[in-house]
């Protein structure tokens, strides 16, 4: 397939309800206000150095209803969440939050970079997003620091209950 053919949008790809689904989610409410001025992309520090990441394009794909294309896109995960786009959008679209909504939807479909799975697992096990080396914990005393507060995995589990992403994590674990 040539590059132009790959980029061509087919009617069968379009899900007209997708934008309403996003607009119902926290942070996605103002998606429809975007008139594609491009302030987000021109002010985006990541777009400056990435050849593929363009927030305006992601927002347009969401508006058009290109569900599968946008959710499976690797570029979705490049946003650094600096919120420059959100602060500068003349239409008050929470651009970075719309992207977060899309990432959440992508995660539900199983499109998740490994780093997030590792951090989620670590939080469930210890409360901390990273596995803090024993040596570091011991060194605190000699550095004159108070003991590291402990996590409470049982309590964390209880309050997370049946959160969607947990189910996904468990499925991913079973597959191994």
């Amino acid at each position: 397939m040539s590059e132009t053919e790959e980029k061509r949008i087919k009617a069968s790809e379009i899900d007209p309800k997708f934008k309403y689904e996003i607009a119902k989610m926290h942070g996605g409410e103002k998606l429809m206000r975007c008139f594609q001025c491009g302030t987000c992309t021109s002010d985006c520090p990541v777009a400056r150095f990435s050849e593929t990441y363009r927030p305006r394009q992601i927002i347009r794909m969401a508006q058009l209803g290109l569900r599968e294309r946008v959710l499976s896109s690797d570029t979705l995960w490049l946003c650094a969440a600096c919120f420059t786009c959100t602060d500068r959008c003349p239409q008050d679209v929470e651009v970075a939050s719309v992207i977060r909504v899309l990432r959440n939807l992508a995660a539900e479909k199983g499109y998740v970079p490994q780093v997030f799975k590792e951090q989620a697992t670590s939080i469930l096990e210890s409360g901390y997003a990273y596995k803090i080396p024993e040596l570091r914990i011991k060194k605190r005393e000699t550095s004159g620091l108070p003991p590291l507060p402990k996590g409470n995995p049982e309590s964390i589990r209880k309050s997370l209950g049946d959160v969607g992403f947990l189910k996904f994590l468990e499925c991913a674990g079973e597959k191994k």
Partner: protein
Amino acid sequence: MSENKNKYLMFLGCAIPYRVSAYEISARKMLQKLGVELVEMPEFNCCGLPLDPVSHEMMLILAARNLALAEQKGLNIITLCPGCAGTLKKVNKILKEDKALREEINKHLKEAGLEFKGTVDAKHLMQVLIEDVGLERIKNSVVKPLTMLKVAEHNGCHILRPKEYIGFDDPEDPKTLKTLIEATGATCLDYMDETECCGAPSVGVSDKVALQLARDKLNHIKMVDAEAMITICPFCHIMYDTNELRIEKMFNETYGIPILHYPQLLGLAMGIKPEELAFNELRVDVSKILKKVTESEN
């Protein structure tokens, strides 16, 4: 909101105990000198920010748990990490304003015997310094003004943006960190794209983009001949301090710009001995600056 402006619940976050202890060591020393009392969290879980991209709901619950724990203690939270501060602030505001969401999140917390009521505040170290400790007390603590140093600041995104939720300083022209740096006697230089992101959140997804962002900033700081960069975020600090040598090799350039945590700078001005401020944990050689400070006569 707790009215106590001299006593806080210390929320360390994950990055600091994992690999940025110099920030914690120097911040605790500095706060002690300023008469700010710290109480440790009775138990801890991540603020939730790292998981917001994959589950907004999980982030809300994790953040609300910490706020609820602080409420039980009746103390406002202080964080050293802008990411934690931004998340706790944002969730505090959202849950206070959105009753339906608050009830939903509280159903989750109830399972663990917790409840979010919205009675405490969460602040970053810098906000505590400027609003609660006050500039006068900080200036009065300086015994060795660092007039011999010219430095540049780097704020970090989440202390400023999104402004609708954070409501601290001016995200387009932030002044607080500059003011705090100048309180030490050092000169704080202006440079291009001061509010630009360090790139840390893109590490692991695209190291190439992340390192180019960090390099961009180092370049701009070098252009104004700053002798050091001053940060107030563990992630920004890792991004520059840990990667500076890597960037120098990758692009065949030389920067040699030490990256200091703000409390290390103020600590020096307060007359705390350099060896008590964990300078030995920094990767980029800091000896030139320390020599300049210790050898100066004022």
